């Protein structure tokens, strides 16, 4: 009974930042267009706005039994509370993407590969705060290119957002991707 490697991504913030949508898009990209198994789950406080909210995607070549993150390879933190809550479960040397305008305190230990991406500012540049999650998705893609191609992600993104916002979402995705590519050296 072979046991396959798991690749675990966690996105956290507060309700209304599109955290859940990122998870759904990633899962669709991996499992419908990317040929891998994935499980996407989400937590939600009773607060639908302003409360703790996280979305996770566990990816594997084989079956995925335990559906939740055990030892996250990637954490995207869009608020300080989110970082404080989940930084402890990010793998030693894991990838940490955060919004420097929202997240100001990061514990020194952990050896994380840190990527400060101003998702709120870049979203406003694209036209509206609601594109913050597409920016974050683009930034994430630039950091996990060895795990997934761009085409499945783009297909999943287009399929998961209201039709009239597809172009702006794509623009936001590109903004996030290019920001990472330009601000962080290639081998990061």
């Amino acid at each position, binding site marked *: 009974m072979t046991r396959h490697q798991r690749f675990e991504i966690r996105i956290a913030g*507060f309700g209304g930042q599109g955290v859940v949508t990122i998870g759904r898009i990633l899962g669709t990209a991996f499992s419908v267009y990317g040929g891998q198994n994935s499980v996407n789950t989400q937590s939600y406080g009773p607060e639908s706005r*302003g409360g703790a909210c996280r979305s996770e995607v566990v990816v594997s070549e084989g079956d995925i039994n335990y559906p939740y993150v055990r030892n996250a390879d990637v954490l995207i933190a869009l*608020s*300080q509370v989110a970082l404080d809550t989940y930084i402890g479960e990010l793998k030693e040397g894991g990838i940490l993407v955060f919004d420097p*305008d*929202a997240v*100001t305190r990061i514990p020194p230990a952990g050896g994380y590969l840190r990527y400060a991406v101003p998702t*709120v500012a870049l979203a406003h540049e694209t036209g509206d*705060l609601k594109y913050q999650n597409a920016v974050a998705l683009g930034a994430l893609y630039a950091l996990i290119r060895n795990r997934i191609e761009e085409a499945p992600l783009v297909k999943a993104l287009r399929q998961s957002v209201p039709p009239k916002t597809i172009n702006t979402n794509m623009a936001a995705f590109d903004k996030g991707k290019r920001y990472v590519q330009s601000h962080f050296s290639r081998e990061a």
Partner: protein
Amino acid sequence: MNRLCLNATYCKGCLICVEACPTGAITASDRINSKGYVLPREGDMRRCTGCNLCETVCPDFAITIETEDDSGE
């Protein structure tokens, strides 16, 4: 002159207080706080009559007005 007292922890930037203020004494600030909210701030407080409508309609018990006799005690 009356002063605006705002609890920035409780306030969620709904700005109903600004809408309810009959004289436009308070207004929305121009920056977003760490939670992504736009908070109310003092506008032209000379217009404030101390009617307390802002305090009464606040959904989060976050705003109140300090009048002279409040602060004068």
